[in-house]
């Protein structure tokens, strides 16, 4: 066999093509029947809505019931209470507590703080004593979502403004943006201040913001939010976009107000007063 440069280059070229072909074919074969078979779906019992909303009937709520609702929500979501006595054995190195610190998802507020634009010199006296339950309004134009630099807070398709705590970097822009004070920051590890940890919901860690999630984890199982269950009929959640829904019926029948409506955030929580 004659040896020439030309012949050597030919053989080398063919060999190079052959070497390249194997990985390319493997890649093509993998794509054909890859991991496409696995899928992620919703629970069959899950509740759906175009846009979730809430109606709170203040006339049905007294101070005792308000406390019960707050307790139900906070206990099930492992919201810390800084007045809680720390277990010295479990958490030996816990620093002394600053009692002005608070973390809250749903709480009792005075009328003139909840509705400062509706405060009036000659306002009916009873409004000053009613326990207005306030929480995240799950706004249609949520300013916190626009402020979040990591998309840890976002508007879900069904209108719930929810957080991915994994992504929160603790910058607190959302807290500055929220006109309702619905967000709390974990200045310290919340675990020593949780009375009884509910295993069905994670706790948070130091350095993240938290707020009401409209019990997304319960709606996904077809259950009503904790506050609705504890409220003895005073709180109702439902689909704001569905004219036949329970919340729309209530809105048709009653005069309702929303918090700081003039700001244009379009809150999804309505109050019957």
């Amino acid at each position, binding site marked *: 066999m004659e040896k020439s440069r030309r012949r050597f280059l030919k053989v080398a070229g063919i060999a190079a093509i052959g070497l390249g072909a194997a990985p390319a074919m493997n890649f093509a074969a993998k794509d054909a029947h890859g*991991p496409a*078979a*696995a*899928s*992620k*779906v*919703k*629970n069959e019992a*899950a509740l759906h809505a175009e846009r979730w909303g809430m109606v709170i009937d203040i006339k049905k709520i007294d101070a005792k019931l308000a406390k019960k609702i707050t307790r139900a929500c906070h206990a099930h979501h492992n919201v810390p209470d800084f007045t809680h006595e720390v277990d010295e054995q479990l958490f030996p190195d816990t620093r002394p507590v600053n009692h002005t610190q608070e973390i809250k998802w749903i709480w009792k507020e005075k009328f003139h703080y909840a509705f400062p634009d509706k405060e009036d010199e000659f306002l009916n006296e009873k409004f000053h004593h009613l326990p207005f339950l306030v929480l995240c309004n799950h706004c249609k134009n949520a300013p916190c979502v626009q402020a979040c630099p990591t998309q840890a807070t*976002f508007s*879900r*398709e*069904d209108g719930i403004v*929810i957080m*991915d*705590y*994994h992504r929160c970097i603790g910058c607190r822009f959302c807290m500055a943006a929220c006109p309702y004070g619905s967000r709390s920051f974990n200045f310290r590890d919340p675990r020593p201040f949780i009375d009884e*940890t509910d*295993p*069905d*919901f*994670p*706790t*948070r*860690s130091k350095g993240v913001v938290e707020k009401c999630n409209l019990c*997304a984890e319960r709606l*996904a199982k077809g259950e009503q939010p904790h506050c609705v269950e504890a409220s003895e009929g005073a709180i109702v959640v439902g689909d704001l976009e569905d004219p036949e829904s329970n919340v729309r019926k209530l809105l048709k029948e009653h005069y309702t107000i929303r918090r700081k409506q003039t700001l244009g955030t379009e809150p999804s929580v309505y109050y019957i007063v």
Partner: protein
Amino acid sequence: MTKNMIVTGLAVFVLAVLSPFWFNLVTTTQAAPEPELLGRAKEAKKCVLDKYDMRANHMSLLDEWRDAVVRDADRIYVAANGHTFNMSLSTGENSCLGCHEDKAKFCDACHTYTSVNPYCWECHTNPKEIQ
């Protein structure tokens, strides 16, 4: 003379290059721990992905699951092998810890050996550890 020098030099070089192997021959090292399958996980036999895929990719799977649950509200995972799972690390019967009941022997054994410190448990709770 030169030849001897070169041979000796080569021998020393080979010995030095292979030193990690000699070192391992004289010292004993701990074998990598195998994740232990106990209780329900042992009976089930089938996990979300096959064993080797799971070993290599469980962290990306968890990452994918989190996005599906939090962002799209999809909470059920229908695996390629036909089984369905609750996409949750620690809550419910059909979650990771629901089946792999012993976190210490399943998660921690390998993570400790490889000096990996995932921060899952700063927020997620092990139902067994709650008094």
